[in-house]
């Protein structure tokens, strides 16, 4: 029995157990949409803009670890998807994006809604395919899911010309996949792991620095075990929040540009640094020369060899999958009954507690003004620390990261690598579909939210009970902060006039809107949203202090020990 290419596409997605496809139809994917219509295993979520389709698929992936799937038409559908794809790529998120293409015979003729999707997306995908034969569909989609979800995850684009979705052939979904050119390493090199363990045991000022790789590989449990076993201090990058309990005493907070004093100084002054699934980003280590100016041995566990020794020279590279390598380390520690250097460690903790005593995250309340940090603290209390929190990009993102203490992985969804304004609401949508019954908060700013505001319509259609926490400072706050600090307070184009009335806007879409202007109303508004309107989308517009800035801060090009603190100003 033969099937059309379109039917095969849908069958493949069913074989991959895909529950949700986020997408938007158009000419070149009409055959596929017709097949979608004829089945009920896969639910299609019609978004209002293709960028949001990819972000929503990405949000689903981040909150579950599953591969997110989006579908778009050729030309403008595909180009609208590019920001979403690049965002997922920078944060190593597994996605399969299916795009329609003009019929094979028209390719290269500037046909209606033609664009070189494979060419445009090449630099921002893990891999991409243009299918030229209906017989190749099943194997290609199998490969796409395999590549997206294994090794260092990432988005894979599958571009399918319209005629291929009409052509027919027999369908058989491959059970396994073997690629001679793609074989990610899983197990770490035992000799290297042994060396690493010895270094850790001999360390006098050890520090553990972990990132997105721990979340992506679901290794929070092993990480917690290892960290407690060693008694070392630990920090999680912006992408790694929740990998280690944010409320634990060994946890020093986030490192980097807006990291804590104790995390940054412990990174800087450590004599052995254990980096796990983190890539020494410029927002984390600041100036690499400054960082390398102190002697320190670095152990780096990463599944992608190119992440190792890219920005900082590493002494003990371990290529492998985080949970596998950590299991191996724990085994070695148990076998040797070995203990770290207790006296040195006690000394080191004393120093760290000195830094911690600075309480760098303290902020001043101002009379009659809502401090953004306070909103996040209250959000944490009202949700019991159990919400999935998404954010957009800007100051509000940093405050959410700093003041919501994530105790579990996959609860914090944000765009770290590309820093894409507009992800917050679609991420919350993806998370809401994949985690029914969970509290979902989208922390955003009045500028970011407007970049995908149209999705309030999608959220209404599917009754998604998202709580939008808008920290409305009437400024492109993060831009304003840089202008205040480094451009003589010349606020060039960072003030946004004529903002919409967000309460009315929310209501226009059929949602609940609340405006909060006084600090004493913050908690009640949050409770109203999360309790009284548990099942509704609530847009809470908090008018916050316009002058609040994010601290501590390591200015661009500076070293980790050169932080600017709130109290310095």
């Amino acid at each position: 029995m033969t099937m059309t290419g379109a039917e095969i596409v849908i069958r493949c997605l069913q074989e991959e157990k895909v529950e949700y496809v986020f997408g938007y139809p158009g000419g070149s994917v009409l055959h596929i949409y017709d097949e979608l219509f004829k089945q009920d295993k896969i639910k299609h979520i019609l978004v209002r803009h293709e960028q949001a389709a990819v972000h929503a698929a990405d949000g689903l992936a981040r909150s579950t670890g599953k591969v997110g799937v989006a579908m778009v038409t050729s030309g403008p559908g595909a180009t609208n998807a590019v920001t979403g794809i690049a965002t997922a790529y920078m944060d190593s998120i597994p996605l399969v994006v299916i795009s329609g293409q003009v019929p094979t015979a028209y390719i290269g003729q500037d046909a209606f809604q033609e664009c070189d999707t494979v060419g445009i997306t090449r630099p921002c995908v893990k891999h991409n395919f243009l299918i030229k034969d209906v017989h190749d569909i099943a194997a290609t989609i199998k490969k796409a899911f395999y590549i997206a979800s294994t090794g260092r995850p990432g988005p894979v684009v599958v571009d399918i010309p319209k005629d291929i979705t009409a052509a027919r052939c027999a369908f058989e979904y491959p059970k396994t996949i073997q690629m001679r050119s793609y074989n990610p390493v899983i197990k770490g090199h035992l000799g290297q792991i042994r060396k690493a363990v010895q270094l850790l045991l001999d360390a006098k000022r050890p520090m553990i620095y972990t990132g997105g790789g721990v979340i992506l590989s679901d290794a929070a449990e092993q990480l917690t075990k290892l960290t407690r076993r060693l008694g070392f201090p630990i920090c999680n990058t912006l992408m790694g929040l929740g990998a280690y309990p944010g409320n634990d005493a060994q946890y020093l907070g986030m490192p980097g540009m807006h990291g804590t004093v104790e995390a940054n100084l412990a990174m800087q002054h450590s004599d052995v640094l254990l980096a796990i699934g983190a890539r020494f980003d410029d927002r984390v280590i600041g100036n690499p020369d400054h960082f390398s100016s102190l002697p320190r041995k670095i152990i780096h566990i990463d599944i992608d060899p190119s992440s190792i020794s890219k920005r900082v020279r590493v002494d003990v590279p371990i290529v492998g999958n985080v949970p596998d390598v950590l299991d191996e380390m724990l085994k070695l520690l148990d076998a040797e009954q070995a203990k770290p250097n207790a006296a040195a460690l006690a000394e080191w903790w004393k120093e760290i507690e000195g830094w911690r005593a600075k309480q760098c995250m303290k902020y001043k309340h101002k009379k009659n003004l809502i401090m953004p940090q306070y909103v996040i603290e209250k959000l944490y209390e009202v949700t019991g620390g159990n919400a999935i929190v998404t954010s957009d990009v800007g100051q509000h993102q940093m405050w959410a990261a700093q003041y919501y203490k994530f105790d579990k992985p996959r609860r914090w969804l944000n765009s770290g690598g590309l820093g894409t304004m507009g992800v917050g609401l679609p991420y919350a949508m993806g998370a809401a579909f994949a985690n029914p019954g969970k509290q979902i908060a989208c922390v955003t700013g009045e500028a970011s939210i407007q970049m995908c505001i149209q999705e309030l319509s999608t959220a209404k259609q599917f009754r998604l009970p998202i709580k939008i926490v808008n920290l409305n400072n009437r400024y492109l706050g993060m831009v304003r902060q840089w202008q205040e600090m480094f451009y003589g307070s010349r606020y060039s184009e960072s003030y946004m006039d004529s903002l919409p009335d967000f309460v009315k806007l929310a209501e226009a879409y059929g949602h609940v809107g609340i405006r909060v202007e006084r600090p004493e109303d913050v908690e009640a508004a949050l409770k109203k949203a999360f309790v009284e309107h548990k099942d509704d989308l609530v847009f809470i517009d908090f008018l916050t202090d316009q002058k609040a800035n994010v601290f501590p801060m390591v200015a661009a090009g500076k070293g980790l020990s050169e932080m600017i603190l709130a109290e310095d100003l």
Partner: protein
Amino acid sequence: MRHIISILLENEAGALSRVAGLFSARGYNIETLTVAPTEDLSLSRLTIVTSGTDEVIEQITKQLNKLVDVIKVVDLSEAAHIERELMLIKVRATGKDREEVKRLADIFRGRIIDVTESTYVIELTGSGSKLDSFIQAIDTGLILETVRTGVSGIGRGDRILKV
């Protein structure tokens, strides 16, 4: 430092542009690039001459290995190897220059493969630097056209790059 990097990759549409795109996107330089299918038509062999510090070359090899279409990568210049490039060069050959050019071609073991009343086409193979020397040796005023294939290379003895 100059490096010769050999790559085995899937002989598939777009594979070459992934490699070339990687170099431009990450700011690595390409001096020459050659590519052709091997005896196994599903495989292409690509040779890139590039330069950079040890750290840059390490990143180049890692990034190349990360491309899904790339099967193997070897830095040929790390050990004993042979490099060859082919050049066709068309020169003005009139009067006393005719003899002079022929003599020079002989010294470099070039072959004259096309002759007209006023021109020669000389075929020359060798390392990139040998071809450079030939161009330097000949009076630039005489050169009408040059075309070079770019370097291809192979390891000596037991060094074999195969799937």
